[in-house]
């Protein structure tokens, strides 16, 4: 029986005899494996980004907005108009729905903010202290809103980091004032950064007391009892569906609707997260599948070269058989050559793929997510490619009749 080390030695020797050909053959697998690795890393990065940005909106969050549900999660503004949601709804939810840790009515507005001779157009949201809980907001510098700010409709404001940077590039905004829609407001705090949510810059906004925004900033939209949305934080992840159902039931009673003519929509952040995760997963799979095709092409390249090699080395195969090589020995030698080519290609492809993923995620400003299993998969898969595409040429070699083979020129 041939020693395993000699089998490997014979295969390596054959590959070294044609370095250029071996390198080009391995290149097919390098391209295949590196593109799969890069695509998978890219997909993982995109997914991590989606998850973190959505969870940064706040955990266990339900958002009630005016307007009817449209298809899969979209919102239409028609039925009931923008004033369908009221402060009374928010109070009723807080009073009647169980398993809630915060209910935060929100009034949206827009405004041109001026300070320091600089100006910045941004969203200004009128909120209550509950909003900080509902949205997991924290203050980087200064203080949060308190009940008195709201009850007395104080002219105070908290700036998102983007706003703070643009209006106060080189100074601490806390203690300064900004002008907004004709009024002057004291900056009491700067929010911690939340980053991009995928839809918008979550740091590009300002928070003021709900009462202040309704009376002074929102203009016509602020009149009356209507509000732009209600953020609800459920007590735990498990009760989200329960709270969602209770909120819907309660609002249907209050709005006298029966489901078909609802003038409000409850958005469940958890289900949106799931939907987006699924979407990115599908996308990743698609990219990896396309990359997988190039791995297949690399495998076919190996098969092609191995078939050429078997033809070229027919005499050598015949001789080895005459000298005592069994079919299995020949099969193993040629199989090993194919596997060595593809595993070497796989290892190099792994490194190239990681470098590629690093470059692409860097350029796209995505997190670089490196999976610990990826190297194992890359090596195992490229090995399988070698086995699959090396099997037929090796079988052809093993099956050669030694007499025929030795007669061949």
């Amino acid at each position: 029986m041939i020693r395993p080390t000699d089998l490997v030695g014979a295969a390596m020797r054959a590959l070294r005899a044609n370095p250029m050909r071996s390198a080009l053959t391995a290149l097919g697998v390098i391209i295949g494996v590196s593109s799969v690795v890069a695509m998978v890393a890219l997909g993982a990065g995109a997914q991590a980004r989606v998850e973190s940005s959505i969870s940064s909106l706040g955990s266990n969050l339900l958002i009630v907005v005016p307007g009817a549900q449209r298809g899969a999660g979209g919102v239409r503004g028609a039925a009931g108009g923008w004033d369908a949601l009221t402060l009374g709804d928010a109070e009723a939810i807080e009073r009647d729905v169980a398993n809630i840790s915060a209910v935060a009515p929100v009034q949206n507005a827009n405004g041109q903010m001026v300070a320091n001779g600089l100006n910045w157009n941004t969203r200004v949201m009128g909120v209550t202290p509950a909003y900080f809980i509902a949205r997991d907001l924290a203050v980087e510098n200064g203080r949060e809103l308190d009940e008195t700010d709201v009850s007395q409709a104080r002219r105070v404001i908290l700036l998102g980091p983007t706003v703070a940077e643009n209006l106060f590039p080189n100074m601490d905004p806390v203690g300064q004032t900004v002008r907004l829609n004709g009024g002057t407001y004291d900056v009491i705090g700067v929010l911690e950064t939340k980053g991009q949510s995928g839809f918008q810059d979550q740091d590009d906004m300002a928070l003021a007391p709900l009462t202040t925004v309704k009376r002074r900033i929102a203009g016509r939209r602020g009149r009356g009892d209507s509000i732009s949305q209600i953020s609800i934080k459920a007590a735990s992840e498990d009760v989200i569906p329960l709270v969602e159902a209770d909120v819907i039931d309660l609002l249907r009673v209050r709005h006298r609707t029966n489901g078909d003519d609802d003038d409000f929509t409850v958005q469940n952040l958890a289900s949106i997260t799931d939907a987006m995760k699924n979407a990115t997963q599908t996308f990743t799979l698609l990219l990896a599948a396309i990359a997988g095709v190039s791995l297949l092409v690399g495998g076919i390249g190996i098969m092609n070269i191995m078939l050429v090699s078997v033809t070229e080395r027919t005499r050598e195969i015949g001789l080895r058989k005459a000298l005592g090589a069994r079919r299995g020995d020949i099969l193993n030698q040629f199989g090993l050559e194919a596997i060595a080519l593809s595993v070497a290609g796989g290892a190099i492809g792994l490194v190239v793929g990681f470098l590629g993923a690093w470059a692409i995620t860097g350029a796209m400003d995505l997190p670089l997510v490196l999976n610990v299993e990826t190297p194992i998969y890359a090596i195992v898969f490229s090995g399988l490619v070698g086995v699959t595409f090396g099997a037929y040429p090796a079988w052809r070699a093993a099956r050669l009749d030694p007499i025929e083979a030795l007669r061949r020129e």
Partner: protein
Amino acid sequence: MAGLIAASDLVKLYTMGDETVHALDGVSFEIDRGGYVAIVGPSGSGKSTLMNLIGGLDTPTDGHLYIDGQDIGAMDDSDLAVFRNRTIGFVFQSFNLLPRLTAQENVELPLIYAGVEPKTRKARASELLHRVGLGERISHKPTQLSGGQQQRVAIARALACEPQLLLADEPTGALDTTTGKEIMGLFRALNGEGVCVVLVTHDLDVAAQARRTIEMRDGKIVRDQHAAASA
């Protein structure tokens, strides 16, 4: 003394379409251990076919062939590979050395398939190359050797696993007369050491060296002649 080779009614048929070629047509003979036999005959008479059967490269269509007590017809592929490795040493007309390997590595090949460890087989290869007169050239590649030297390497390789039987199909066919004589001298010396040599040749001078000559024609043995004890 039991015969090393015992063939009875050996038949080898080749079918090509409708036509059947009787490459061997009922051949029976025995060859003793340590024998020295030349097989002669016109082209197409079945000499190579017979050698291939004796060497375990092919199996007979009919009849029985025993070599060293083993039934060649009953062996499977793996048995035949081991048989070729242990019992037979092949020498070819065209040397059949692997061009990428040195002389020493070429001689090591059968030892690799016998599973001999590297140190032992390197020593053995070197010793054999010294024995065939190539001690100075063990790390030469085949292209750096003359035809005669290449055939010596091939003979050293054939001897690697200490076979009982050396099979040579026209070993001097590609060599000039002088070199051919040197190679024949080597065969005779090896035969003197107890190795059974069976060779195919067209050259009557070469055949004359053997102690026995089997002549074939149309797949049959037409003459089997033991030389008078010669020098």
